[in-house]
C-alpha cells in the first residue's frame, strides 16, 4: 500500500478525484476459438475450441504451463493473431485486428519501448496522430499516467536509463494514457524481482479500482493469479484448452500480507496449483 501512496500524492490529496470512465467497461465473449499456425510439419493447433467469457470490469487471470497457448490466447483477444475458427466478440463486436478499446502490455518491455524517445514521448505514442485527442489533452493524459505509475520525475529520461521495473511502468503508463476499456497483459511482471512485482501488482489493482477496466492477465505465477484475479482460467494441453475456471472470491481491496495470509487464499492457491500441475486436471 505504501507504494500506492508514493505513486499518487497528487490524486489522493490536492487534485479532484478522477471522473469515472465515461464509457462502460467491455467484456469478451469467445465461441469455439481455435488457433493453428504453420509449423515445421504442417499446421499445428495451438488452441482448440475455447469457449469463455470475460465480464466487463472483471480481472481474469490466465495460467497454465508453458507451451499451452496462453500468450496466443491473449494475442487473439488483442487482435494480433486471427482465430483460425470460432469468433471473438468484444462488447458485441467481432475482433478483427487490434480493437481501439484494448491495449496490450507485453512482457519484454525493453523491446516494446522506443529507445530513441524519452519516457514522456513513449507514453504519448498511442495518443499521437489521433484527431479526438488535442495536444493539451494529450499532455495532460501523459502527465497523469506518469504520475499514476510514479515516474513523473523521470519523464525526460530515455527508457534504457531506467531499471527494468521502471521500464515496465513506462509501458503500463503508455497503456493507461489511452484510458483503455480493456487491458491485455502478457506476463507483464514476469521478469521483475519480487519487491517490484508486488508494488506493480498493487498499482494495477489501484488503477483497476478507480477505472473498472477489464483486465485479462497471463501469468505463470500462481500467487499472482490468485492475488490479482476475480477468476483464474487454467489452460492445459497441446493444443491448449480451458481445463478449469476457478472463481476467486477474496475481498477487495487486497493486501500483499493480509490477503495472502487468509486460509481461502491458501486453499485457492492449492486448487490452482493442482489444476495447473495435474495432467488430468478438470
Amino acid at each position: 500500500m505504501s507504494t500506492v501512496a508514493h505513486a499518487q500524492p497528487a490524486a489522493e490529496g490536492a487534485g479532484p478525484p478522477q471522473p469515472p470512465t465515461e464509457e462502460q467497461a467491455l467484456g469478451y465473449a469467445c465461441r469455439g476459438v481455435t488457433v493453428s499456425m504453420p509449423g515445421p510439419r504442417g499446421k499445428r493447433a495451438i488452441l482448440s475450441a475455447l469457449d469463455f467469457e470475460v465480464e466487463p470490469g472483471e480481472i481474469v487471470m490466465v495460467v497454465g504451463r508453458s507451451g499451452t497457448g496462453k500468450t496466443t490466447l491473449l494475442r487473439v483477444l488483442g487482435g494480433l493473431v486471427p482465430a483460425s475458427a470460432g469468433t471473438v466478440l468484444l462488447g458485441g463486436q467481432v475482433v478483427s485486428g487490434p480493437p481501439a478499446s484494448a491495449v496490450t502490455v507485453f512482457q519484454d518491455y525493453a523491446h516494446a519501448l522506443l529507445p530513441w524517445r524519452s519516457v514522456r514521448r513513449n507514453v504519448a505514442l498511442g495518443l499521437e496522430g489521433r484527431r479526438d485527442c488535442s495536444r493539451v489533452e494529450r499532455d495532460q493524459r501523459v502527465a497523469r499516467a506518469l504520475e499514476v505509475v510514479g515516474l513523473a520525475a523521470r519523464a525526460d529520461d530515455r527508457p534504457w536509463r531506467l531499471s527494468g521495473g521502471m521500464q515496465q511502468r513506462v509501458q503500463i503508463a503508455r497503456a493507461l494514457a489511452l484510458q483503455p476499456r480493456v487491458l491485455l497483459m502478457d506476463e507483464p511482471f514476469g521478469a521483475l524481482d519480487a519487491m517490484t512485482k508486488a508494488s506493480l501488482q498493487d498499482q494495477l489493482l489501484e488503477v483497476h479500482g478507480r477505472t473498472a477496466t477489464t483486465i485479462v492477465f497471463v501469468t505463470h505465477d500462481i500467487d499472482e493469479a490468485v492475488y490479482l484475479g476475480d477468476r483464474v482460467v487454467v489452460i492445459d494441453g497441446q493444443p491448449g484448452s480451458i481445463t478449469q475456471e476457478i472463481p476467486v472470491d477474496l475481498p477487495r481491496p487486497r493486501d500483499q500480507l493480509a490477503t495472502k495470509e487468509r486460509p481461502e487464499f491458501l486453499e485457492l492457491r492449492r486448487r490452482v496449483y493442482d489444476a495447473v500441475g495435474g495432467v488430468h486436471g478438470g
Partner: protein
Amino acid sequence: MAARLRWLNLSGALTMITVVGAWQLAVDTGLVDLDYLPAPSEVAQAGASGLSSGELGSAAAHTLAVSLVAWLIALVVGVAAGVLIALWRPARVTLTASVEILRTLPVVAFVPIAVLIVGLSTTMEIAVAAWAAMWPILVNTRGGVDAVPARLHEVAAVFRMTALRRVRVVVLPAAAPLVLVGARLGLSFALIVTVVAEMIGNPAGLGYQIVRLQQALRPDEMFAAVVVIGLLGIGLNAALLALTTRVAPDMFEPGRRA
C-alpha cells in the same frame, strides 16, 4: 563516436606529417627522381594558385554540387525502396533478385552507356552517381528495417497506426543507425562516381581537371586536384555526421539499445 569529432588525433596526424615529410625529403634530396613526381611543396603551390585563379574552386564546386544532388536523389529513392522491399511482400518477392544482380554490376561500366543515352552532360553525371549511391542506401535501409524487432511492429499495431505512421514513427527511427551507414557509404560513392563520370564522360569538374592536367603534363596541379577531392570526401562525411547528431541525437546514441 560521432558526437565529438576529435579534431586533434595526435598519432594519426603524426603519421601523415611523417609520410608527407618523407616524400618532400625524397624529392628534395634527389633520392627519388621521377620526371613527373612533384614535391608536396609544389603541389601546395599549385593548389594555392589554382584556388586564387578560381579554376580549382569552380571545378570543385561543380563536383560537389553534382555529388550532393545525386546523393539526395539516391537517398530518397534508396530509403523508399529499402523500406518498401523490407515491409511489403510483393515488392520483396519481385525485386530482391534484381537488386542483388544490379547492385553488383560495376557502375563505371554504365558511364559509356549513360553518355550514349543522356549525352555529355551534368544530367549524365547525376544519373550515374545517383545510381551508384542508391545501392548501399537501399541495401542498408532494407537490412535496418528487417532488423526492427517484431515487437515494435506489434506495438504499432496495438496503437492502430496507419502504414505511413508506422514507417515514420516506428520503423525509420528504429532503422536509423543502419540507414545512416548506408547514407554515408552512398555519399562516398556519389563523390567517387561523379569524379569518374567527369574523367571518362562529361568534361567538367575535378575529374575532368585531372585528365586535362595529365594531358598537359602538369602533375603538381593534378595532385592538387586530387587533394581537393580527398578534402571534399572528408568534409562531406564530417558534415553528414555533424548534421545527424545535431538533428536527431538520440537516434544514433550508441548505448540506446542497452
